[in-house]
């Protein structure tokens, strides 16, 4: 399926197919119009790769406390570094479909309770060893293991048994899950020699580049992995990933040509940056979203009318314009958007309605005491400003919303998932099921809205095993509506990935699944002489 789409794309970008035809055909393959559009807009395809050179990316989201252990990767820079030296079984293609990496073939039984991954032959680690099915199992084990401290622990929970026979890895699940392959694309699950049990932070993997130097929070330097299996990747001789957390410096750096790629262009300056002829702004409508989360079990948010009142009093368009500088789309109070397969775009968009909000507020019978919204600059870019816009629009509807600033330091431990009402963000997941089961299942670890709804849970489990796409789409649509009207999530906006590319960089393909081509930019881009 992915290969077919790629074929279409190449046709389109080579001009052999009209835009409308492409979008149509892509749609037929379950690709949303938005994504298809994005795909085409990045017509970097046509030209052919240039080998050699030093490709540099400057990124936000790294600290000197980072490590190379994929299990502990949490922020953008480690994510990028790991996806440059390591590879997963599969990854998520630009259009949200499955791409084959270490696994060259994926199949399952009828009820999706058992999955078979055929491991590609002759995949070699940087240390010369060859990647085996045992390594894969060992890796998965390491992340499942209770002793492990992996962020992927929740993901691999469902697997009851894993075994390796020859070049075949077989995973058995408690309940059927049609999306399991996508879970295997999780960036924590980098395949390491012996599963990386002895030395998780060795940074030895099977990726296109091998690490030659790593100073956490500063720089990771790579050189080409000579025996890399995939000739279509790894064009530059060397690549470097620099941590440049300061927006201004990072932007200045790409303009000055000190770096070739950058993540997280501050939406505010996109307009200004457009003036620069050397730098192209790459957008991808991703699943990431900025949210305000109310805990449904904590007063006063245990009252759905109050929740509705607050949902009604967000001016989503204003936020998209001012916080995202238009680089995003309005949210609809459930965590899914067009970036996901099986998204139901027929669900009505919620608008700012002061009157309605006021009614709900009256109905809720709230005592009028100030409603505290806790926020830190680091909750998401522009969080403080967004909260202030929220406050303004809510106050206009007569709701006594008040913003309380928290320091970034300790925000995720002391405020998020603790305080009744705070700002947060979700990076999104490759598939709806994963998103819902991570944060909205009653029993989920990170159910940060403390949303508990038996029916919702049932539908989710059922949908998991459902292989009929249309039925499944219907179920997801129902879940969406439940969350939208009774959930604790206020989702004002989905943020596009807004990233910078100097014009001499070729091979860019927008990928909504993650930052900088879902971490593949270093392996897939090249420098035009």
């Amino acid at each position, binding site marked *: 399926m992915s290969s077919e789409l790629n074929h279409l794309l190449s046709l389109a970008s080579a001009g052999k197919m009209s835009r409308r035809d492409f979008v149509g055909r892509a749609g037929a393959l379950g690709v949303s119009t938005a994504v298809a559009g994005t795909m085409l807009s990045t017509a970097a395809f046509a030209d052919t790769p240039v080998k050699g050179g030093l490709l540099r990316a400057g990124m936000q989201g790294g600290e000197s406390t980072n490590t190379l252990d994929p299990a502990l990767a949490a922020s953008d820079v480690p994510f990028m570094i790991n996806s440059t030296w390591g590879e997963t079984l599969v990854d998520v293609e630009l259009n949200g479909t499955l791409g084959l990496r270490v696994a060259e073939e994926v199949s399952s039984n009828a009820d999706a309770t058992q999955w078979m991954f055929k491991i590609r032959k002759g995949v070699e680690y940087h240390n010369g060893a060859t990647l085996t099915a045992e390594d894969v199992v060992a890796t998965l084990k390491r992340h499942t293991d209770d002793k492990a401290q992996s962020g992927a622990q929740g993901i691999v929970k469902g697997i009851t048994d894993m075994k390796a026979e020859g070049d075949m890895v077989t995973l058995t699940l408690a309940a059927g899950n049609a999306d399991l392959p996508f879970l295997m694309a999780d960036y924590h699950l980098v395949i390491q020699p012996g599963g990386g049990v002895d030395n998780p932070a060795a940074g030895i993997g099977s990726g296109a580049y091998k690490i030659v130097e790593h100073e956490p929070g500063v720089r990771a330097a790579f050189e080409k992995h000579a025996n890399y299996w995939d000739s279509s990747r790894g064009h530059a001789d060397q690549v470097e990933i620099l941590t440049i957390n300061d927006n201004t410096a990072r932007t200045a750096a790409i303009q000055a040509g000190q770096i070739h790629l950058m993540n997280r262009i501050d939406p505010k*300056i996109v307009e200004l940056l457009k003036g620069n002829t050397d730098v192209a702004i790459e957008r991808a409508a991703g699943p990431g979203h900025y949210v305000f989360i109310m805990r449904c079990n904590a007063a006063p948010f245990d009252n759905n009318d109050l929740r509705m009142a607050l949902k009604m009093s967000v001016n989503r368009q204003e936020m998209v314009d001012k916080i995202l500088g238009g680089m995003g789309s309005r949210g609809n109070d459930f965590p899914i958007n067009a970036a996901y397969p099986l998204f139901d775009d027929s669900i009505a968009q919620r608008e700012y309605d002061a009157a309605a909000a006021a009614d709900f507020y009256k109905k809720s019978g709230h005592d009028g005491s100030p409603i505290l919204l806790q926020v830190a600059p680091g909750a998401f870019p522009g969080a403080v400003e967004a909260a*202030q816009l929220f406050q303004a629009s809510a106050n206009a509807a007569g709701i006594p919303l008040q913003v309380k600033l928290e320091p970034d330091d300790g925000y995720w431990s002391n405020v998020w998932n603790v305080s009744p009402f705070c700002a947060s963000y979700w990076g999104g997941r490759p598939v709806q099921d994963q998103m819902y089961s991570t944060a909205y299942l009653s029993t989920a670890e990170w159910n940060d809205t403390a949303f508990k709804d038996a029916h919702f849970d049932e539908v989710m489990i059922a949908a998991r095993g459902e292989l009929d796409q249309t039925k499944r789409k219907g179920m997801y649509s129902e879940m969406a509506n439940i969350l939208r009207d009774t959930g604790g999530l206020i989702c004002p906006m989905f943020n596009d990935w807004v990233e910078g590319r100097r014009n001499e960089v070729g091979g860019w393909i927008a990928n909504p699944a993650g930052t900088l081509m879902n971490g593949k930019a270093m392996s897939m881009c090249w420098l035009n002489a």
Partner: protein
Amino acid sequence: MRIPLSALIGLVMTGLFVLSALFAPWIAPYPIDAAVGQVWEGPSAQYWLGTDTIGRDILSRLIYGGSVTIFVALVSSLLSFGMGAFFGFLAATRGGWIDTGLSRIVDLMMAVPSLIVALVVLSVLPLNLTVLILVMGVLDSTRVFRLSRAVAADIAVMDYVEAAKLRGEGQGWIIFREILPNAMSPLVAEFGMRFIFAVLFISTLSFLGLGIQPPLSDWGGMVRENKDGLVYGKAAALMPALAIAVLAISVNLVADWILQRTSSLKGGRGG
């Protein structure tokens, strides 16, 4: 009394700032938190200094921000002076173990980089004006302590202080009636300096994200909000920066003037 031109300018400017801070709600053309215009509009008849990163009127925010900045800086410097001067004088007049003890404690406080301290304390305690002021006040009081101790030590050996002791006067009279009046001018000059460093310190704290509650915002915070525009020559960030600089300079001019009249040798940016 003869006031050199520079000092006069300083006095006038400082006065203006203080007034606009005091009457912020009446002067500011727009509410502080209302997004009235587009993002980063240039100066216009409507928005004299243009608009900020989410389209709020910069002039209004400057005026409100000024009142916060000046208030915090002022109160914290007052605090640091209250503490610093009192203990400084105590150490100088009592001497002995009190002096040694206090001096060692101050050495200790000064040896720990004040940024760590600020970082630690501000993330332990709830982030509000009171805490901010307390932290800054205490951190700064060490320097005041050293100055006032030095000044007081010079005065304490004067014959008139000895005369007071011979008369049998108490500690209070000696500190407040004999020493304080004579230590005043160097302290006042130092106060100017401290005030400026307080302003700069708040800005730095806000820059590191440990600043002031929204929708209020001190000038340093405003610079931070708008800094990304700077690289593209958007003036939005320069306005508050300019405000800080001008305030600092005007106070500094006044301080200098007093300093010249009593050439004192203290002062210094926090380590």
